[in-house]
């Protein structure tokens, strides 16, 4: 590495008027045991760091996060009177809070420390010691450059609204509502269907205890209905969501019920005269209902409802109703509620197995789903073809689950135990019944589950390990099941008179729109994504929104209840304090430059900017700190705290300019998803070219062409921009923004192939390794940026 470059970086000062007086910076570099030290020559990094401008001391330690490491930072801070601290260690996602707390205890503002990610984004991504050390020097130089421009910031506090909205009235939503209401919080329970109860209300009995499902659920339904602190809103959906943790404002739309809930006694006279008959959803189509109907006998609210889609508006029911409960002029009602937190418990739906034609669903009445079987068990067991008692039943597991070719790759988890339960129940109900379960692997992990499985085997349930190739109707009520017994290694053909399919569990319809409204992330399996898989399992990506039950993935009643109670606890710890802390990392207007053009107002995704007389104003509660308003401002009159123009420029100059790498590539990663994904590549020890250095930005939308030009001018040969999926920057705006940047950069003589942009979700992090490799290879082919182009980029990069 060349000493000249360091000099140049050290002299850099992007914006003289904003440059603070030369602060005293201390650099501390962690070996992290051998995690960093085995790959990065920590001493060489320290020596180089010591020569950087403003650096008054540079130290190393085996474990900076340990108490001896923290003591070192304390004593050096006092000894040298340090004003800014740079920690070269793990990802800030890991220990930023640790070191900020340390700073606070030393009387230094916690926003005056900067972490350089030498582990997840450097030492864990390569085995090449020299290259890793050069990369570490670059990362430290970027951090030191930024540290000199850091400003003290103070988070503000906001009073929270202590109401809670629970979306989804299945067993998870009900338990969460009751738990919170019993703690004294006002709860709005919003259910899309006309009754609460969810899928649990449809089940016959629950495994492994064989409790009657409705017997344990309906007391909860009644308690929910009667609780003074729970406002039950059935037939209602979320329309819009505004605000942030502690102060959400939700607009709800209640679909017309056409029946007055107060007046209806549930006598059913209306249904008797209704001429329309349709398949009953609650009965999974095994029975029929009228267009005016009670969802199920124990429904809450216990009032009839008109099915808008199928009602012919003959209104015979009006005459039949002795209580005058039917209101043909009922209309959709919009309602606004103010809450501090939201719990999502939207549950699941079952895959329609008719796409899997080999199982013949829909071609013969005796091929049914396990949810249909649950309803048949309730009505006395019969085979649908002739309503006679079945003699031989087959269950087929994993219909569309564990099938990455045509279905879902994941295990739907509940089908094994549900089938075992159904087989045990039916063996009790029907004498001499033969029950066969075709499975891939029988999964019975859970308290009492294995014992239940053993009991089923003792009861004579037949278990066949093997995949079913096809189900063929043969004659009358009989069905031929052809399967491969993988234990015996032979083909098995057998006749049954009832075949029960166990289709995959999918997230409930509309989960995508809800996620968009609430700012939640969806994983590659289609379910909602938790903040941290192990340690924050019911927190969403959005503060103040918590997740429970099957919206996170397939699970049974017990697990759903466990999560519901967890979300109640998480909600209470957010709302119980009465105040929430608001990050100071918000946009602010430099009012003397603002000419009230209003461009920022148009671009702001959260409508946080207003335009009163005398220039734009940012509402710091609504502002999410994405920085989309910055590149759009023609007067450079808006900036972002803790990601200011001068801080970003100093980072770029440092990281792109300290050492030489051929080719050198700067990757700007959006701070939440994309940066986390970059960390995960390292965490998985996936190696990628050391040429790539990552710079965290609030959003790719915060970048202006001048930042890329600054990177090229300082030494970069290629730039990658990575935005998370589902961020405030929509796909359309992202591509348009990137194209705009490319055009400007191209007009300065840099080929547009040197600029690459991509999006990723956190679970798809492995894609980034492919991006880094492909792009490095591309830039290597293009060769280093020609010196004329580099000098040309300088002109624009400095202009502000």
């Amino acid at each position, binding site marked *: 590495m060349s000493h000249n470059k360091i000099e140049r970086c050290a002299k850099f000062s992007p914006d003289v008027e904003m440059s603070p007086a030369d602060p005293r910076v201390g650099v501390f570099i962690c070996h992290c045991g051998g995690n960093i030290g085995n790959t990065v020559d920590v001493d060489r990094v320290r020596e180089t760091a010591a020569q950087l401008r403003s650096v008054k001391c540079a130290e190393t330690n085996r474990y900076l996060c340990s108490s001896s490491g923290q003591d070192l930072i304390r004593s050096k801070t006092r000894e040298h009177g340090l004003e800014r601290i740079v920690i070269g260690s793990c990802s800030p996602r890991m220990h930023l809070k640790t070191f900020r707390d340390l700073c606070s205890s030393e009387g230094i503002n916690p926003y005056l420390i900067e972490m350089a990610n030498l582990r997840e984004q450097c030492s864990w991504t390569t085995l090449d010691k020299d290259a890793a050390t050069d990369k570490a020097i670059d990362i430290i130089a970027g951090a030191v450059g930024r540290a000199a421009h850091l400003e003290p910031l103070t988070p503000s506090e906001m009073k929270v609204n202590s109401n809670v909205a629970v979306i989804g009235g299945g067993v998870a939503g009900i338990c969460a509502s009751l738990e919170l209401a019993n703690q004294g919080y006002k709860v709005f329970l919003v259910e899309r269907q006309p009754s609460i109860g969810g899928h649990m209300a449809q089940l016959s009995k629950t495994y492994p205890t064989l409790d009657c499902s409705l017997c344990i659920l309906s007391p909860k339904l009644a308690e929910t209905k009667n609780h003074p602190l729970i406002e039950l809103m059935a037939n209602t959906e979320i329309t819009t969501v505004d605000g942030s943790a502690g102060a959400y404002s939700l607009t709800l739309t209640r679909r017309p019920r056409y029946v007055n809930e107060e007046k209806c006694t549930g006598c059913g006279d209306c249904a008797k005269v209704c001429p329309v008959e349709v398949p009953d959803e609650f009965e999974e189509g095994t029975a029929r209902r009228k267009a005016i109907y009670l969802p199920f006998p124990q429904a809450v609210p216990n009032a009839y409802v008109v099915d808008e889609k199928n009602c012919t508006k003959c209104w015979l029911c009006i005459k039949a109703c002795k209580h005058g409960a039917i209101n043909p002029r009922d209309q959709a009602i919009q309602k606004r509620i103010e809450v501090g937190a939201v719990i999502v418990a939207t549950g699941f739906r079952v895959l329609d197995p008719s796409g899997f034609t*080999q199982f013949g669903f829909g071609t013969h009445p005796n091929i049914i789903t396990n949810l249909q079987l649950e309803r048949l068990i309730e009505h006395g067991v019969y085979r649908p073809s002739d309503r006679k008692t079945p003699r031989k039943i087959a269950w087929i597991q*994993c219909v569309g689950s*564990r*099938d*990455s*070719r*045509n279905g879902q790759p994941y295990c739907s988890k509940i089908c094994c135990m549900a089938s075992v339960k159904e087989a045990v129940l039916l063996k009790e109900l029907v004498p001499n019944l033969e029950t066969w379960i075709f499975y*891939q692997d029988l999964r019975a992990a859970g308290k009492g589950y294995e014992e239940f499985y053993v009991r089923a085997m003792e009861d004579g349930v037949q278990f066949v390990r093997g*995949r*079913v*190739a*096809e189900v063929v109707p043969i004659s009358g009520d009989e069905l031929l099941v*052809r399967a*491969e017994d993988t234990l015996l290694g032979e*083909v098995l053909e057998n006749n049954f008179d009832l075949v029960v399919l166990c289709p995959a569990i999918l997230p409930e319809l509309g989960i995508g729109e809800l996620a968009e409204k609430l700012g939640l992330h969806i994983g*590659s399996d289609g379910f909602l994504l938790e903040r941290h898989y192990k340690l924050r399992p019911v927190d969403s990506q959005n503060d103040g929104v918590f997740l429970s039950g099957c919206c996170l993935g397939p699970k049974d009643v017990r697990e759903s209840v466990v999560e519901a109670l967890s979300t109640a606890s998480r909600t209470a710890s957010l709302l119980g304090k009465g105040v929430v802390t608001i990050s100071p990392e918000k946009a602010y207007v430099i009012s003397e430059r603002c000419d009230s053009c209003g461009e920022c107002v148009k671009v702001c995704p959260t409508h946080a900017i207003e335009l009163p007389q005398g220039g734009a104003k940012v509402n710091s509660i609504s502002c999410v700190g994405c920085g989309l308003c910055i590149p759009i401002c023609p007067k450079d009159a808006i900036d972002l705290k803790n990601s200011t123009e001068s801080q970003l420029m100093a980072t770029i100059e440092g990281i792109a300019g300290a050492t030489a790498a051929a080719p050198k590539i700067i990757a700007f990663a959006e701070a939440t998803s994309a940066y986390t994904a970059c960390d995960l590549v390292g965490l998985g020890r996936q190696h990628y070219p050391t040429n790539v250095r990552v710079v965290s930005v609030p959003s790719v939308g915060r970048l202006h062409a001048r930042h890329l030009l600054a990177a090229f001018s300082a030494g970069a040969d290629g730039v990658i921009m990575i935005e998370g999926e589902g961020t405030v920057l929509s796909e359309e705006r992202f591509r348009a923004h990137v194209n705009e940047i490319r055009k400007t950069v191209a007009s300065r003589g840099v080929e547009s*192939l040197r600029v*690459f942009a*991509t999006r990723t979700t956190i679970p*798809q992090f*492995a*894609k980034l390794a*492919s*991006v880094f490799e*492909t*792009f490095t*290879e*591309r830039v290597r*082919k*293009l060769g280093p940026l020609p010196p004329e182009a580099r000098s040309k980029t300088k002109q624009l990069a400095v202009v502000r």
Partner: protein
Amino acid sequence: MIVPLLNRTGNKYYLCSQVLDELVMYGMRVDETDVPENLYYSKEHQWLSVEGEKCRVGLTDHAQKQLHEIVYVDLPQVGAGVAAGQVMGSVESVKAVSDILSPLSGEVLEVNKNLQENPGTINTSPYKDGWVVVVKASRLNEDLKSLLSAEAYCSHVKTLLETK
């Protein structure tokens, strides 16, 4: 999907898709790759069809299968010059990113604008609707010499799969 396969003793086996998955997992290749006869191929998995002065270029079936679901295609500008073996754009799937290398030198006459809206067309129709660019060749005869025939490309793919 049921695919009949024969076991060692010659009995007919009916295997559902899940079994196929497992076979693939254990290293058996059941997938077939479509390689039309009348095209030229590059080792980097681009195909080229000569249409008079113009040449149409796209990604091979093998390439799209390796990439899986394609979500974005970065196309060159109409009028841009391209050189054989040089990057002219890129394709991005949910799992990976791959550069598109031009199999010939010349000037871009047309780009498949439909790919901006429907990048998955490359997956569904790699040789027809999923074409990427049309190039006016500047030195076609020389470029064709370094390209492969369908047969040679097949054995190239086979070698790649075997060494993987």
